[in-house]
């Protein structure tokens, strides 16, 4: 079989490229919306200028990012129909509903209130303006929930029956689709992972400025907020990841066996740290393992049996007929490790950072710093040397990328680990592709999207860098005197807009 020419191969590549790319912007949008809203709340409550400057600074980066998230999201709404028409016909009854809910409830929320927030600085009273960014934040979270409920149904279909007459899946219990444990744990995991991205983003950029002793009051607060978010989110991803793993061991044993390159079931089953194997023969040549840990991850004990790839493959052949039911094992195995590795590395760097920059009672009196000073990095009783301090700031800056790598691999792992199924146990990926779309058409769109996205990535990153380097803006008279009336105060009818495109 020539894989490159299988009808679904190009469509899968295109879906992978456009979706992984889209998801670089999504988690940052979700987390920065909430963090910006939090900072603006701090400004409204305390009236401390540093919080308003922080709101404007992070808000601007948030807007540069969400623009990309929004436009790449448009493709997502249509490409099921474009490239996966048989999938759409088969599951539209079920899968379409959360998508429509997402648009009708979440997208309208997000995009209407983002407009109000961007242009509303001199049009809305302070508290109403603040409410707008919270609405945006709620919109992003709702959006995540609906789309994850839809994805969870592909991982673990519930609340449906197959209509023999039409040959289509039909919804029987929408509540089950929205509240099944796959959806809830996946939502928990994805949201915490999103905040891991936002926390690391704040830590990295704050570290960049603090290392240069610039914009200290704003960056000091931002660093602290970023570190706390990074740690809470990091622990959240670990807990939710464990829960999701246990769900997956039950619902998709093949995915988890592949994640561990566990060829044959074992009791107790070990966790693989490193493995190199032969996929054709179905065994590992080299394996470094921690005994019993996989049993714990699957079943909460250190002795139980965990089925292997070969066992599950045989079981699925008996259930679904002859065929190869194994996903791409190296991708699943390494994807799983990159996800955990980069995610937990972010957490580790966050914990280290929070300890190094601790305040008050935990710190010897001579090393305590004021709000407008760069904090000393203190390991035990003395500050780190300038060289080590610099190194921490550099590592913190690089950490910005880690959760993004973890998020991407997490999705690649969970989607590729489900193969050859698009809806697990119900519809194969090869039966989901659009029969009327030619290879040439898919190739065209794939090249167009890839080139367009590459150009936009360069533009976006350079713009982010420009605004990161510029730092928080100076506040103007208008910033400090928001209007009292909706629509803006009449006294300033001819004043230039506070923000204009």
């Amino acid at each position: 079989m020539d894989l490159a020419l299988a009808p679904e191969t190009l469509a899968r590549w295109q879906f992978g490229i456009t979706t992984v790319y889209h998801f670089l912007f999504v988690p940052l949008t979700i987390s920065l919306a909430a963090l910006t809203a939090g900072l603006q709340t701090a400004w409204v409550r305390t009236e401390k200028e540093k919080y308003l400057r922080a709101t404007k600074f992070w808000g601007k980066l948030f807007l540069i990012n969400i623009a990309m998230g929004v436009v790449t999201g448009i493709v997502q709404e249509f490409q099921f129909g474009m490239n996966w028409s048989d999938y759409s016909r088969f599951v539209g009854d079920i899968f379409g509903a959360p998508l429509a809910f997402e648009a009708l409830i979440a997208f309208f929320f997000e995009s209407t209130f983002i407009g109000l927030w961007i242009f509303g600085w001199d049009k809305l009273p302070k508290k109403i303006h603040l409410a707008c960014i919270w609405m945006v934040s709620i919109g992003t979270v709702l959006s995540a929930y609906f789309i994850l409920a839809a994805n969870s149904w592909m991982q673990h279909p519930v609340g449906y029956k197959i209509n023999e007459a039409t040959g289509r899946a039909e919804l029987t219990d929408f509540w089950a689709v929205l509240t099944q444990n796959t959806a809830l744990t996946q939502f928990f995991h994805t949201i915490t992972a999103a905040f891991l991205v936002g926390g690391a983003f704040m830590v990295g950029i704050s570290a960049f400025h603090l290392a240069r002793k610039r914009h200290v009051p704003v960056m000091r607060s931002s660093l602290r907020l970023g570190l706390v978010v990074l740690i809470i989110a990091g622990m959240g991803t670990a807990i939710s990841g464990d829960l999701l793993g246990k769900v997956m061991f039950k619902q998709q044993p093949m995915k988890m066996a592949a994640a561990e390159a566990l060829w044959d079931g074992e009791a107790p089953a070990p966790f693989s740290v490193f493995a190199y194997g032969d996929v054709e023969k179905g065994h590992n040549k080299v394996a470094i393992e921690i005994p019993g840990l996989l049993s714990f991850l699957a079943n909460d004990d250190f002795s139980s049996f965990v089925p292997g790839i070969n066992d599950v493959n045989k079981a699925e052949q008996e259930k679904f007929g002859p065929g190869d039911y194994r996903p791409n094992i190296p991708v699943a195995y390494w994807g799983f490790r990159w996800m955990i590795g980069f995610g937990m590395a972010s957490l580790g760097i966050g914990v280290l950072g929070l300890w190094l920059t601790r305040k008050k009672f935990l710190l010897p009196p001579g090393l305590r710093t004021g709000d407008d000073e760069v904090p000393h990095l203190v390991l035990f009783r003395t500050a780190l040397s300038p060289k080590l301090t610099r190194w921490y700031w550099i590592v913190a800056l690089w950490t910005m990328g880690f959760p993004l790598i973890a998020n991407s691999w997490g999705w690649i792992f969970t989607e590729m680990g489900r193969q050859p199924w698009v809806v697990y146990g119900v519809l194969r990926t090869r039966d989901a592709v659009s029969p009327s779309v030619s290879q040439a058409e898919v190739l065209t769109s794939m090249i167009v999207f890839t080139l367009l996205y590459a150009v936009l990535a360069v533009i976006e990153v350079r713009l982010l860098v420009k605004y990161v380097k510029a730092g928080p803006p100076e506040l103007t008279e208008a910033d400090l005197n928001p209007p009292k009336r909706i629509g803006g105060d009449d006294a300033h009818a001819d004043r230039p807009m506070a923000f204009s495109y």
Partner: protein
Amino acid sequence: MELHDVWFVLIAVLWIGYFFLEGFDFGVGVLTKLLARDRTEKRVLINTIGPVWDGNEVWLLTAGGATFAAFPEWYATLFSGFYLPLLLILVCLIIRGVAFEYRAKRPEDQWQTNWERAIFWTSLIPAFLWGVAFANIVRGVKIDQNKEYVGTLLDLLNVYSVLGGLVTLTLFTFHGAVFTSLKTVGEIRDRSRALATRLGVVTAVLALVFLIWTQVSRGDATSLVAMAVAVLALVAALGCNLAGREGWSFALSGVTIAAAVAMLFLTLFPNVMPSSLDAAWNLTVTNASSSPYTLKIMTWCAAIATPLVLLYQGWTYWVFRKRIGTQHIAEAAH
């Protein structure tokens, strides 16, 4: 009226909402080239839609999502069948959104000029292509017994569909000019009204030919009523524009769009995508729809969410009700 009929109406309403709202912001995008004399005027125009274009675009996403949920077969056939034109629309919408957001974020002249060009073309192309797409849906395309589109790209380009594209392009640009004369102040407002008159006349001629063609070949009594409303509203919009009644003119150009889209949907019903090969292979509200259970859930969702959406989107327009002139455009701080 069964639920799938209700959803046929709701899908029509979503497209009407989309073309009413994004219609004028496509129009404003086109006008950045036709109307604005310098960069400040371009920015005046862009900022009339600045706070709202994103919310307007969600009507499209919702139309897409609702079609997926309520008529999966329609969603599947339409978007896989019109693959390359849809790709072009998506590429335009991607660039367009980024262009609005990024244009003013760098001071370099070349940077801003590039994004301004992008705004013009990415507003013009979809405004044209949506008309082509809808004319083809109404005209019927090659759909086989498996509900698959079996035509080619060239089949989608015919006199009727190109005329449909020109109608949406001119109608949206007219709608946009009426909108900018309502939303701007100063000299640009007068020029906007003058241009609206000329655009309105061109639109009226093209639309009349297209709508009569549609009525004669596929219409019935109900579509005739919709057509009459569209034509009368367009003439009245032109009259109000001449009389300087900008608010009325905008409302009436909106009615024109709504009635014209309604007419297309009325000629379709009960089909959603007729086959030009064999009427037995038409996609209809019955053979393309979801199960009654899904439609029931969707109906509840729409019944609760849609009024709320209208309420807070309407509120946005109220918040940004003031006219914008060149004096409101600050030298951008970078």
